[in-house]
């Protein structure tokens, strides 16, 4: 974990209200693993006061990319960043996806909305392992779908404007039930309602699944105790999203 002032290279709009920011950090680009995140002080001064955690979306050379929706204070500031300006970045943070091991043959990647964020890094890593990969992206509408750096993408939209008319989990269920994908392990990221639906499915069907969670964070590195994730069947009641996650085995958490 390092703290670094990183120069911004570009901020590009890639979909409706969705932007990709590229900053330069050799140490982070070379050390970050899929599913890990960085914690960004979007602006100097006290508004916003706290850092904002972002999954690392992709890396190219010394460039590190994050992808974001403009939702509030922090992302509004990030969108306005210009080449040469710097941002204060803390990372790599958190526990990455477990992409290795022989307990699965097919990697099933599911992203709801901006839950796509950690999937490109995971895809690139998984391709090295030679595993089969299938991807399911869900979104409100086609206009906010971002499907770069992915493999075998199946798209679901709530409004039916593209691909399957419905959500990514239902689409994944359908296709996985066909059995064409042997010994799957699911890597998922998205809104909590989506992850809840997914959790029910994987527990019922006893499918391996890791999810990357999202929620408020005070520090991002374990000193504030501000990011509890409820555990099941563990002695301790809560894990810390920032330190023990953001990726968790779906069997172990209560959403």
């Amino acid at each position, binding site marked *: 974990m390092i703290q670094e002032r990183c120069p911004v290279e570009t901020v590009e709009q890639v979909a409706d209200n969705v932007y990709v920011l590229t900053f330069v950090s050799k140490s982070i680009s070379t050390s970050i693993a899929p599913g890990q995140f960085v914690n960004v*002080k979007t602006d100097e001064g006290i508004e916003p006061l706290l850092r904002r955690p972002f999954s690392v979306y992709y890396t190219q050379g010394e460039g590190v990319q994050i992808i974001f929706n403009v939702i509030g204070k922090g992302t509004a500031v990030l969108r306005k960043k210009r080449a040469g300006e710097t941002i204060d970045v803390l990372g790599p943070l958190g526990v990455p996806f477990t992409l290795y091991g022989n307990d699965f043959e097919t990697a099933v990647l599911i992203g709801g909305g901006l839950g796509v964020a950690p999937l490109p890094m995971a895809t690139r890593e998984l391709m090295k392992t030679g595993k089969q990969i299938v991807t399911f992206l869900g979104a409100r509408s086609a206009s906010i779908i971002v499907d770069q750096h992915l493999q075998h993408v199946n798209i679901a939209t709530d409004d039916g404007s593209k691909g399957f008319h419905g959500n990514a989990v239902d689409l994944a269920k359908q296709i996985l039930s066909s059995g064409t994908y042997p010994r799957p392990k699911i890597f998922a990221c998205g809104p909590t309602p989506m992850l809840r639906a997914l959790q029910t499915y994987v527990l019922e069907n006893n499918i391996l699944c890791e999810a990357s969670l999202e*929620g408020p964070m005070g520090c991002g590195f374990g000193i504030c105790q501000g990011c509890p994730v409820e555990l099941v069947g563990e002695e301790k009641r809560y894990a810390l999203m920032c330190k023990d996650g953001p990726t968790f085995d779906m069997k172990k958490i209560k959403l």
Partner: protein
Amino acid sequence: MLRTSFNIGSVVFKNRVLVASGTYGYGDECLDLADVNQLGGIITKSLSLKPRDGNPPARIVETAGGMLNSIGLANIGVTRFVTEKLPFLRTVDAVVIANIAASTIDEYCAVLDELESHEGVDGYEINVSCPNVKEGGLSFGTNCKLTEEITRRLRSRTKKPLILKLTPNVTHIAEFARAVESAGADAVSVINTLIGMAVDVRTRKPMLSTVTGGLSGPAIKPIALAKVYETARAVKIPILGIGGIVNTNDALEFLMVGATAVQVGTANFVDPAAGIKIAEGIRRYCEDHSIADTGSLVGCLDAKAGVSVVDTWL
């Protein structure tokens, strides 16, 4: 040669900047980001007799210039602290203050006794912003008699510095400061968080699972300064000033109104080296103003108007 150190009782702090309880874990969480040996002191997360899971999510929400927290004093408990954290803390070249929280006076005593029986803790800070089960959950810290009694009971059990951390959620904090001073406290920490809340208008639910929580950060600095100023004019014991300190200028304000030292809290979440940078900033300020002892900043405020703190026309 600039003198940066100060004492509480016989304990020497090498500079006037500490990290506040609950905002730096047990001191061993971010060693790769900040060298704790450069701090004047480390105050641990509040320790309770038994481990505490803490409150359900959400525990944190950002507000204008500040944040609300409702951690629920999640901590590993004094026993695990002694075995898992003290060994490291013994190696640290900074004063180690154990912060204690409890829901009965006996429990405060039990935690302190346990810590007394081991090497490594240099002093105690008592968090009285805790529900008192005997009184149906009314906070100890808003009851002057109880706060005084806690102080007296604990005083009799240790010779190490005993620091009472006062809550700002009272009418006259000076009363409480006087009470704990007379009961033998070596110092007071001013302030703990202010009670606040926030609402998610989309869901019509409180942002925090416990509805209300503690407000901290730059937003509360003016209130904290006034509480320290009020306290400084009421007691002779040292005051550790806390509340919204994020830079050197903030820390200097606290020293000038009468704080003997400062604690940095929320700022650590943004920059774990904030306290170290502030200690360095105070040093630079003194050198630039040819000040020989950081102590000469304490209470140097030039305030002719001796008006009462609580009773101005608002």
